[in-house]
């Protein structure tokens, strides 16, 4: 039997050339040479679950890293919308107070106005403010003219010798007729005189006579005058026009005359309009209409309509705007005020908008596109996962490797350090550490990196233990003894023999860890301690679900993020499982 085997073997290695031609079972043709890594890949590809996981992960990466590039929106771009909302356009109120129209160049201050009201209430015809005497003329209910005496001439009388001061400001021409009239009145001891149909008052003060004439300087009325053309305002605001118009209006006259011009009056419900040459010249009303928005000029047409609506107690009215479209205004009474509202375009943050063609997954509470935020959030979540695993691997492999390879007291110290780290409750510790970040007001961008470092520092122990165990095991294997026996250097022993043999386990561990880290990051972000606004991460997006209203009504904000986390972690676990099985040499090829 031995002999037979010997022959077979000899044939294989001495008769090589012949063997090829004969075409017997020949190693080179039989099996394709596969390196252990290729074998692992082959086995990995056989596992349906692992492929599913891999596909999920590829999709996730494409979604996060390519999606962010494709998406037309930015990560923290806030979307606005214009909506027609009832906005206060104007307010109106019945005028209950006397309003004063004062002649140009005359001061009629608040003290004088107060005295006017007192005089009106007590029925006095004159009142004094300081040393100025005012006369009150009553034209009708709520229409008063206020006059004061204006000095037109000054006379000094010494024993019937009259000296006229001709330089009185605003004085009149001193004619002989005027002189005669004054002298007659002075000698008669009267304190009035008539001159050219006007009554002048004479005030004496130690032989000095001031000749004055009463002039209307202001009008107090409860009516409001609105000019159609602002150029007409000087006329409309003149005292005499007011009095003429109001007196006419009170007596329901259809015309009145002022300054040589004939004006017409037109009466409608609540509105009295002054017509000039058949055109509307001004409106008289007791309703004040003020714009609610600054820098808006209300048209007289609007005011007219508003007053009509208020007087006829209508709730709304319609007016044509510049474009000729009907604009509807609503009138709402609150106490004495009337609020006039209309739908106006208002800029609003487009929050919680449901999925649409523009926003496939709607927008969130900040008016940001949920889909875009999911993409950018995926970048953060995946990157955090990978960077943290790399940090964990680095620390774990270095410390575990040193521990396992050198052993002795180094091993003891490192393993006690690992025990120490394992004694720290991870979640509370993380919460404390990230709140320290809060206290230092770290910017969101830097915070992410610090978060990665923190998570890495907290999680390396498992990998260190694995590596140490694996190296301790490998160190005793005959092939490691053989490297020593063949005199191979330490560096080569570590990098060519130890590391490659630890790698499979590390890859599996790292893949499995990735899912866990993504969940930890999501948890921290969910608690508001991880990635901070305006940066997105899947955890921060799910954070919206802490609000019950959002959770129940706006599923499109948090459900996709949850599904993404679920899919990614599942993907990593599937791939990890697949790798573990693929690396397992006991599995069939």
């Amino acid at each position, binding site marked *: *039997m*031995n002999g037979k*085997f*010997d022959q077979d*073997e000899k044939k*294989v*290695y001495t008769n*090589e050339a012949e063997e090829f031609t004969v075409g017997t079972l020949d*190693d*080179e043709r039989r*099996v394709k*040479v*596969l*390196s*252990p890594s290729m*074998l692992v890949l082959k086995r990995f590809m056989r596992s349906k679950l692992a492929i599913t996981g891999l596909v999920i992960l590829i999709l996730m990466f494409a979604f996060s890293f390519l999606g962010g590039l494709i998406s037309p929106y930015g990560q923290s771009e806030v979307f606005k919308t214009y909506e027609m909302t009832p906005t206060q356009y104007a307010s109106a109120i019945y005028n209950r107070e006397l309003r004063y129209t004062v002649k140009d160049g005359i001061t009629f201050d608040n003290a004088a106005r107060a005295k006017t009201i007192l005089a009106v209430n007590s029925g006095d015809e004159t009142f004094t403010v300081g040393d100025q005497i005012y006369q009150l003329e009553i034209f009708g209910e709520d229409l008063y003219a206020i006059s004061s005496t204006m000095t037109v001439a000054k006379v000094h009388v010494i024993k019937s010798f009259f000296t006229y001061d001709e330089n009185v400001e605003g004085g009149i021409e001193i004619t002989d007729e005027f002189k005669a009239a004054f002298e007659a009145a002075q000698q008669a001891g009267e304190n009035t005189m008539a001159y050219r149909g006007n009554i002048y008052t004479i005030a004496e003060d130690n032989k000095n006579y001031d000749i004055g004439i009463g002039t209307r300087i202001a009008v107090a009325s409860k009516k409001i005058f609105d000019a159609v053309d602002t150029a007409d305002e000087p006329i409309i605001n003149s005292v005499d026009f007011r009095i003429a118009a109001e007196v006419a209006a009170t007596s329901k006259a259809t015309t009145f005359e002022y300054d040589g011009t004939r004006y017409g009056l037109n009466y409608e419900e609540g509105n009295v309009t002054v017509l000039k040459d058949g055109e509307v010249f001004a409106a008289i009303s007791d309703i004040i209409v003020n714009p609610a928005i600054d820098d808006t000029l209300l048209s007289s047409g609007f005011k007219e309509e508003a007053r009509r609506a208020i007087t006829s107690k209508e709730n709304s009215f319609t007016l044509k705007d510049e474009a000729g479209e009907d604009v509807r205004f609503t009138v709402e009474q609150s106490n004495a005020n009337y609020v006039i509202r209309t739908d106006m375009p208002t800029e609003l943050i487009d929050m919680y908008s449901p999925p649409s063609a523009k926003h496939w997954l709607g927008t969130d509470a900040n008016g940001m596109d949920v889909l875009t935020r999911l993409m950018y959030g995926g970048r953060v979540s995946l990157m955090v996962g990978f960077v943290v695993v790399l940090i964990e691997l680095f620390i774990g492999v270095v410390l575990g490797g040193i521990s396992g390879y050198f052993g002795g007291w180094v091993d003891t110290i490192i393993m006690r350090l690992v025990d120490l780290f394992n004694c720290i409750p991870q979640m509370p510790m993380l919460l404390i550490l990230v709140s320290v970040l809060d206290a230092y007001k770290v910017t969101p961008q830097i915070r992410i990196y610090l978060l990665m470092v923190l998570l890495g520092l907290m999680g390396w122990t498992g990998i260190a233990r694995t590596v140490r165990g694996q190296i301790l095991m490998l160190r005793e*294997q*005959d*092939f490691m*003894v*053989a*490297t*020593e*026996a*063949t*005199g*191979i*250097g330490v560096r*080569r022993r570590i990098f*060519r*023999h130890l590391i*490659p*043999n630890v790698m499979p386990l590390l890859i599996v561990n790292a893949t499995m860890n990735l899912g866990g880290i993504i969940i930890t990051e999501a948890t921290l972000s969910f608690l508001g301690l991880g990635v901070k606004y305006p940066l997105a991460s899947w955890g921060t997006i799910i954070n919206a679900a802490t609000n019950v209203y959002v959770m129940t009504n706006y599923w499109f904000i948090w459900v996709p993020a949850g599904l993404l986390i679920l899919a990614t972690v599942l993907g990593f676990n599937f791939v990890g499982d697949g790798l573990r099985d693929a690396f397992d*040499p006991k599995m069939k090829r």
Partner: protein
Amino acid sequence: MMVEGKNTSANNNENILEVKNLKKYYPIKSGMFGRVAGNVKALDGVSFAIKHGQTMGLVGESGCGKTTVGKTILRLQEKTDGEVLFNGIDVFSLTKSEMRKLRPRIQIIFQDPYSSLSPRLPVGEIIGEAVREHNIVPPAEYDDYITKIMRSCGLQPYHKERYPHEFSGGQRQRICIARALALDPEFIVCDEPVSALDVSIQAQIINLLEDLQDEYGLTYLFISHDLSVVEHISDTVGVMYLGDMVEYAEKEDIFGNPLHPYTKALFSAIPMPDPTVKMERIILEGSIPSPANPPSGCKFHTRCNECMEVCKSIPPKQITLDDGHMVVCHLYDEEVMANGGKLPKGSEDEHKAIDTNQTQAGEPEKLS
């Protein structure tokens, strides 16, 4: 290419390896501070020598220290005491870098061909790695050299690209042999190289080892528990029991005339391929005692079927007979035998020994 020293000593009859009173104790630590509570005496003073081009077989039960001898000779672990002289150089006196230079000249082949090859390296790399490390051949000749070595070990050149998992146990052992051989060694410790292989493959490997020995003038220390293999391959044979070398002689001598009761028991277990021969087996009672707490006197006395009173308390001396046959047993000590195997008069241990004898009287000590 030839390592210096090989030429100078290849044609004379000098010893390539001398092991003198080699001791290897593994301390047993206990307590919090790692206090040494005792020692596992894996090797308790082993001496032997091997001549150039010869093969020494080392046999014994599992756990008797055979592998420890092999590993200590290679200085894969430190000794406790004694000397290992390789071509007259004390291996343990060398510095690390000197030791690295010496490494290629002494190689080892492991028992388990599965764990002794790194699963992540292709075969060519496994064999050639150390060749490059030690510059055994110029880089230009490297490929041809590896091919040559592989061919001489029964491997095909295209096997270079393959990984260990693609090979059977026998082929793996060939790879291990090629790895050792590639360094152009003078001396190879074969640590049970065929134990893990099935019988037909064992023959191939043994033949290969013999062929290589002829071709390259190698010296082997062949460690095995398989006596027929040892009988086939060895020139001299050492028998170990519990860290001690109990018998050492030329192969013909020891197989033809085993002296030590343990050797006799061992050799009685060799199966005879002749069914007509009635085998007289000596069956040893009990198992090998713990090397941490070996029996007093002769370590073998607890299982010996020729145990005498003296064996229980006094360790036997090493007795070398005229033909160089060395044995460690009281039976061959004329002084002791003259005394009838009793304790010498006035010995301190006399009383104690008698007491021990009485307590053990009920137990069967011999069985044939």
